[in-house]
């Protein structure tokens, strides 16, 4: 049936935030009229009376209908025309005399953006929807547009929720003596354009696993410092994340050259970074000190000519929501 905005309260939706508003803007260009229109169109024929029309509008709680004659759409009529006819005592007049023959329609394959523009321009309550051959295939109200957008947003929102739910229940859903999820990321030497991507992905993965924001920040900051160290000082390496139900272990390994004096490297402010690294805002010798303050345990081992291995452990406290 044809929907009018006032006919049913719109279901409660999650708060629409900025990102989703942008999404709505995208959706009005993506969605087509046929995806949101009402398909079961209530129609009248030209030989029915205005009194018949009154019953159709009343019973269906709608405010206008397309007029169809032998399968062909011939006009539109709205509640305004009905009121005027009733006022003038013309209830027994035929719809065919009172209907608007020059109606504005919208194409089924138009975007919602196009339809919204039509509503703004013509101030009609509804538009008949026609296919490429001009056949009536549906009817479109502003309520249909709003409902269509909300439905689509809810679908998008649900799919992210399901993704999060599945990820956060991985440890409960998979039974074993000990379940460990291992994530592995390569880090290239000197690549400051893509540097940080591994940490960014680690952050997103842990977010989906349901990590608490404070905990997430500690792991992200430490992982990023470790990734930056691989970028600046090594020939390249890897970030390996081991996620367990009670702890996250992040291991940053590289293939050399190795740290000559590990004790000294751990001192705050000690750095061997060249000037160009310092110009990028790094290399002040604070990285390992930062990592230490973010982790619950860390261990740095290095062999000259072979490489360096940094292990960082972040404990998840049971019941803390982390």
């Amino acid at each position, binding site marked *: 049936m044809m929907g009018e905005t006032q006919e049913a309260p719109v279901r409660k939706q999650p708060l629409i935030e900025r990102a989703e508003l942008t999404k709505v803007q995208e959706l009005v260009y993506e969605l087509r009229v046929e995806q949101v229109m009402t398909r079961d169109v209530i129609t009248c024929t030209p030989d029915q009376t205005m009194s018949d029309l009154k019953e159709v509008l009343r019973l269906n709680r709608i405010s206008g209908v397309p007029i169809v004659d032998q399968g062909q759409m011939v006009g539109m009529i709205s509640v305004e025309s009905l009121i005027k006819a009733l006022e003038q005592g013309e209830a027994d007049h035929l719809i065919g005399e009172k209907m608007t023959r020059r109606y504005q329609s919208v194409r089924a394959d138009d975007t919602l953006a196009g339809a919204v523009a039509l509503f703004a321009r013509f101030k009609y309550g509804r538009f008949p929807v026609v296919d490429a051959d001009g056949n009536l295939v549906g009817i479109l109200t502003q309520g249909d547009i709003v409902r269509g957008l909300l439905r689509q947003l809810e679908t998008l929102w649900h799919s992210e929720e399901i993704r999060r739910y599945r990820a956060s229940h991985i440890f409960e859903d998979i039974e074993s003596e000990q379940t460990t999820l291992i994530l592995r990321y390569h880090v290239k030497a000197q690549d400051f354009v893509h540097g*940080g991507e591994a940490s960014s992905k680690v952050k997103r993965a842990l977010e989906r696993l349901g990590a608490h924001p404070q905990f997430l920040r500690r792991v*992200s900051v430490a992982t990023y410092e470790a990734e930056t160290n691989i970028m600046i000082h090594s020939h390249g390496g890897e970030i390996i994340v081991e996620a367990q139900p009670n702890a996250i272990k992040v291991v940053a390994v590289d293939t050399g050259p190795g740290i000559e004096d590990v004790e000294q490297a751990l001192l705050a402010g000690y750095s061997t970074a060249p000037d160009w690294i310092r110009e990028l805002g790094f290399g002040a010798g604070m990285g390992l000190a930062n990592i230490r*303050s973010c982790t619950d345990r860390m261990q740095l081992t290095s062999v000259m000519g072979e490489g360096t291995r940094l292990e960082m452990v972040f404990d998840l406290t049971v019941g803390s929501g982390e």
Partner: protein
Amino acid sequence: MNLKQILSVIDGRLISDSADLSTEVEMACGADLMSDVLAFTHSGTLLMTGLTNPQVIRTSEMAGIKAIVFVRGKNPPPETLALADSKGIPLMASHLTMYEVCGLLYASGLASCDIRERDAAARDGLGSGQASTGS
């Protein structure tokens, strides 16, 4: 303080194509050293910096920086803009120096990411770092 008020205080402009200017920041930090940003800021901080490379955005993403002001009239390169856009971090610019921007915002009542405050919070088990595991 929201981004709109900040722009008016520092005589700044929005660089990002679009941003919600009613976004609130609770405190601010001025730094050109990214390790300091990682160490001394909290989630919801406004960052003032003279650096414009993409690592500034990466750092901000990891540290939970809410918005960035580039000082001394610096314009970030396209790769920085693109990364900030994809991470949803609004970028602003001011022709004023770091000292002036910080001074104006501090005088307008925007709090600092106080290191002493942070240390005190960490001792109480509230801040970031080792002590926060129990929080």
